[in-house]
């Protein structure tokens, strides 16, 4: 009988170990997957996969960077001399235009003659830049120069200021506005939520009567249960017009509204965690402080808050985590304009909103898809840095306080 019990215990032990290791393994695999998909981006060419840019052989320009390509195809750059070429007008040629120049029959069986026709078009115009699929490149035409394609550079990704993932021929993946937008909104959300949250936590744990606490705590916890899309809708319909009228802004969807909505969403987390930490202060410490003649307020900020500091920093980290990772509410109220924020009264675009809005239609395995995974990696790195630093801070504080 005793033997049997021991075996049963052993089995439970093994099961617990296995489930623990499976969970850790799964988390590790997710991270590996995330980074593997993301870093593939830097092995991808700047020009859309399977396509290439061709110019006439007389054109002295040999290389174009993504920004130049974008400006050329947006007709912002109209002459080759702006790119170090001859003084000639740039003629844009997209692949589909070939079908309006020639009849379908002229391409022969299975488009066999298509490269030849494309070659003819390029040879005729000295200022042309053609955007063509690789399989139909007129490679044997010596009048055609194919521009070599470079890979997307890390510098352009992290330092770029333009996020245009679907522009052709060359997409721009500048994540700087997205990273700054995310941090901008989150920082102000925490600046709003932290004093409020701490105040409520102190009130609830130290000052409120038992009856008041019994009403208020479940109400606040209820806030955490509201789906984020409801907060987003509330923000869009109520807060956006309100802020716009109050501050007389041209646009209502701004970083400020995003921060307020996020602050409201982070509040329940901050309040409950911080309040629990404060209530866990041993009765003896509280009474000792009061017995020494300290007032209640002195007790709160000299004894209880320092004692609960690790719990409070945990509350802050959880709050920041919620703010940085929040998707739906932010997607609805911040306007999602990918510009580097200069003030609180401008629209911003955050990383989670970008991933949520774009991943659905990004072709699997393409550069856009990879860049969204890389955004996920960045988000992961940001939250990891925050939680590690919070841990370090709370440990140091404890040593200093001698607790």
């Amino acid at each position: 009988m005793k033997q049997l019990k021991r075996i049963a215990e052993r089995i439970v032990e093994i099961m617990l170990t296995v489930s623990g290791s499976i969970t850790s393994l799964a988390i590790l695999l997710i991270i590996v997957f995330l980074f593997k998909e993301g870093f593939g981006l830097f092995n991808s060419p700047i020009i859309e996969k399977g396509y290439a840019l061709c110019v006439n052989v007389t054109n002295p320009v040999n290389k174009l960077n993504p920004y130049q390509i974008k400006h050329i195809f947006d007709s912002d750059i109209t002459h080759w001399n702006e790119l170090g070429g001859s003084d000639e007008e740039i003629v844009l040629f997209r692949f589909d235009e070939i079908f309006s120049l020639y009849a379908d029959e002229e391409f022969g069986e299975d488009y066999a003659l298509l490269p030849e026709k494309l070659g003819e078009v390029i040879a005729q115009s000295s200022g042309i830049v053609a955007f063509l699929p690789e399989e139909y490149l007129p490679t044997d035409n010596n009048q055609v120069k194919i521009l070599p394609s470079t890979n997307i550079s890390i510098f352009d990704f992290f330092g770029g200021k333009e996020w245009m993932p679907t522009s052709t021929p060359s997409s721009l993946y500048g994540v700087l506005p997205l990273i700054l937008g995310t941090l901008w909104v989150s920082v102000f959300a925490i600046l709003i939520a932290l004093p409020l949250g701490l105040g409520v936590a102190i009130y609830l744990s130290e000052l409120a009567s038992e009856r008041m606490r019994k009403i208020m705590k479940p109400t606040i916890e209820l806030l955490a249960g509201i789906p984020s899309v409801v907060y987003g809708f509330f923000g869009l319909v109520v807060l956006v017009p309100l802020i716009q009228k109050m501050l007389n802004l041209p646009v209502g969807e701004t970083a400020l509204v995003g921060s307020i909505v996020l602050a409201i969403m982070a509040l329940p987390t901050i309040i409950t965690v911080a309040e629990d930490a404060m209530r866990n202060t041993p009765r003896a410490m509280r009474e000792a402080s009061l017995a020494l003649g300290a007032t209640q307020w002195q007790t709160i900020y000299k004894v209880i808050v320092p004692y609960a500091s690790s719990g409070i920093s945990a509350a802050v980290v959880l709050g920041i985590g919620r703010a940085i990772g929040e998707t739906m509410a932010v997607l609805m109220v911040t306007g999602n304009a990918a510009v580097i924020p200069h003030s609180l009264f401008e629209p911003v675009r955050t990383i989670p909103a970008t991933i949520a809005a774009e991943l659905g239609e990004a072709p699997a395995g393409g550069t856009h898809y990879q860049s969204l995974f890389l955004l996920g990696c960045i988000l992961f790195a940001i939250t990891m840095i925050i939680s590690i630093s919070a841990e370090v801070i709370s440990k140091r504080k404890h040593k200093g306080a001698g607790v």
Partner: protein
Amino acid sequence: MKKTFLALVIMMSALIGVQAQKIKGSDTMLPLSQKEAESFMKANPSQVVTVTGGGSGVGISALLEGTTDLAQLSRKIKFDERKKLQEKGKSVKEVIAAYDALAVVVHPANKVKNLTREQLEGIFTGKIKNWKEVGGDDLKIIPYSRETSSGTYEFFKESVLKNKNYMNGIMSMPATGAIVQSISQTKGAIGYIGLAYVNKDVKSIHVSYDSGKTYTEPSMANAKSGVYPIVRPLYYYYEAKSESKVKSFIDYILSNAGQKIVSDNGYIPVK
């Protein structure tokens, strides 16, 4: 009640092994396809049609993998998609089921009534920044766009912006409803939405594609007669092999009853 019945029919057919027709693709066409499928199944109780969204690109790749019978697209099939299908030995057929007109809308208090395509291009690419440049008040222009994933975004870029990129940092909203909401509460706003979404909270702009000679109001009648320029076809694609399987549904959409559903939902019928 209707839903439970529908679910029951689907389950029953799965049990007895009736092959259902599957439609997948554009989210724009999702409501239309669903309504069509519902009344089609009511008319032909032996048939089962299931409709799912995911985006135009998703529809084509499902057709490529053979996991759907019909792909619904809010844009024409791209050259490389057709090429990929050819490589797999599949030839596809195309049916235009309806047309969708895009209206350019502004805040109701905006004085501006007419805009040319060139002016719209300037506004959405960020070259025209103030309403006074196009005959309005001295007010900053705030252009709203759809997210990059939407077929509407692509079509507007192709038709109005002539393939140029939208301005850097354009406001982009996740849904048409959100655009209507934002424009109705922002004085300097301008955006584009499907004709079916135009309501009294926003004012639609008369558009000219002949540099200002004639301005056309986005209305059902003008879109139908082909005078209004920003109109896109909505397509169904299917494999030539499986024509017999999907024929009855396609015929139903193109029939009078099917086309009535098209116009009831704010789209323009093909006939």
